[in-house]
């Protein structure tokens, strides 16, 4: 953590302690694997995972140097960056699935709902877990791609957290909800069905989230940043190649995770590459929907080992 061992060299025998702000959801399983399999330790890092409910307070904590690294939606970070906060993306976090069969997100409606197509959502209430953020953005974009003009004015969006959204849909308190795994699976247990997969319909392998850190840490300990990036990429690689290991890891990462759900849910997709262009679509959409006023310099935002 900040202040501790500023010039300590990285070695597995005497690892450097850092804090990673996480969200206890499936996309972060690689972070757990990296701890569990000792990838971080091999790089000389001792990583403490701190569960947080959402990415936004993680940004604040990273800026405050409370946490060394964080995980957040790309839009949150673009907003923060466009307002001048000193943070930079360092690694890919999670991306949309390549096809509908393996989709790990979905807009769910009650099984007996009259809503069948995106067009049926017009005039309805749809919940996302955070407004003015990536979830909101992908749903808007997917609706536009489905031919609905200016969906923001035709559909009412509400903010409801994932764990509550399934209940809200099945109790018909909202008409539809965008959720990600494991809640798509939870929904399927509760008589809901999926009518669209916005993450896929927004763009191919759409970048949802990234790992990030503060400019200060990059400046002071580029070796730590590089070591972290290597370990997390290695873990994402491993996760992609070993889906069974991921499935087994989830209930250990989130000890309260429902086992039945963990067995059946679709797994997220990871890639180990992160380039400024991965953020372009998201940035354009954020600008288009008014979440940001201008697109920050993406080249300067993404840190790829050297400037």
């Amino acid at each position, binding site marked *: 953590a900040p202040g501790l061992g500023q010039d300590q060299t990285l070695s597995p025998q005497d690892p450097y302690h850092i804090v990673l702000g996480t969200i206890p959801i499936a996309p972060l399983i690689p972070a757990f694997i990296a701890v569990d399999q000792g990838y971080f330790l091999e790089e000389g890092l001792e990583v403490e995972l701190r569960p947080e409910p959402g990415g936004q307070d993680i940004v604040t904590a990273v800026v405050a140097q409370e946490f060394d690294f964080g995980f957040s939606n790309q839009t949150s970070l673009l907003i923060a960056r466009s307002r001048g906060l000193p943070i930079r993306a360092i690694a890919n976090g999670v991306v949309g699935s390549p096809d509908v069969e393996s989709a790990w997100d979905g807009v769910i409606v009650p099984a007996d709902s009259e809503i069948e197509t995106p067009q049926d959502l017009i005039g309805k209430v749809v919940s996302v877990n955070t*407004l*003015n953020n990536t979830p909101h953005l992908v749903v808007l974009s997917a609706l536009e791609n489905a031919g609905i003009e200016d969906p923001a004015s035709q559909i009412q969006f*509400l*903010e409801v957290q994932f764990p509550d959204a399934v209940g809200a849909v099945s*109790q018909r308190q*909202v008409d539809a909800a965008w959720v990600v795994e494991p809640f798509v699976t939870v929904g399927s247990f509760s008589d809901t069905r999926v009518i669209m997969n916005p993450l896929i319909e927004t763009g191919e392998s759409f970048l949802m989230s990234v790992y990030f850190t503060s400019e200060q840490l990059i400046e002071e300990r580029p070796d730590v940043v590089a070591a972290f990036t290597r370990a997390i990429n290695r873990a994402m690689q491993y996760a992609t190649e070993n889906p069974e290991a991921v499935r087994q890891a989830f209930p250990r990462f989130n000890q309260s995770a429902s086992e039945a759900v963990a067995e059946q849910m679709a797994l997220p997709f990871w890639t180990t590459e992160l380039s400024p262009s991965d953020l372009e679509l998201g940035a354009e959409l954020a600008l288009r929907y008014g979440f940001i006023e201008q697109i920050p310099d993406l080249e300067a935002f993404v840190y790829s080992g050297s400037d």
Partner: protein
Amino acid sequence: MKRANRLVLLALELGTPIVLVVAYAVWAGPRADFFFPPLGTILSTFWDGWLGEKIASDILPSLWRTLAGFGLASVFAVGLGLVLGLSRVARIATAPLVEFFRALPPPALLPLTILVLGVGDFAKIMLIALVCLFPVLLNTIAGVAGIDPTLKDTARVYQISRRDVLLRIVIPAALPSIFAGLRTSLSLAVIMMVISEFVAATNGIGFSIWQAKRLFDIPSMWAGIILLGIVGYGLNMVLIAIESYVLRWHRGARAAAL
């Protein structure tokens, strides 16, 4: 109170906040900290952001939720408090439930309210009311149970009807305590309004603060927090005015030589 004293009191009342505000301005001004913007920025954001169409679109809905929740809770809590304060049996029978519900964290209850009450104003009002209930309830119980026994004996001897005992003895005697509860609850109502707009809201002061926070629009967030302070202050002043009218006798009777 003498004239000179009044001036001193007024000076103190206005002076201390001014000193604090100036202190913040001096502290935050040169720092250029992203999360603690200069006072001028906050104030101009406040001016531009809140004193326009947002009054109708956000302030009024929030005020409505706050007051409806508070009002509902107050009426219910005073009524229940009278019953529980007067009847030891009822008090004992309900104590565990009261203490249990008092300790439930409202954010943990949000999912349940969504499930049962939906995502509209009603759910928010009920959540506000639930939290406001307890300070008034506890104070009403304490006020009723603590009535001077001689007053109760007097009422018994003179065959005062149950209704009059309730309306003209028990309630007035408990009012100083009830108002203490109302004061606490009113602030909690504002707080719960913000928390309830955390979820499933589309407008409101709390909603705007969350959105500002999410968009890292820090001056707007602080401007919203200042607005909360102002709203809370205004509501409290109204309550204090009502209280000092209703409890005229009490101030005189307790003009303590402190």
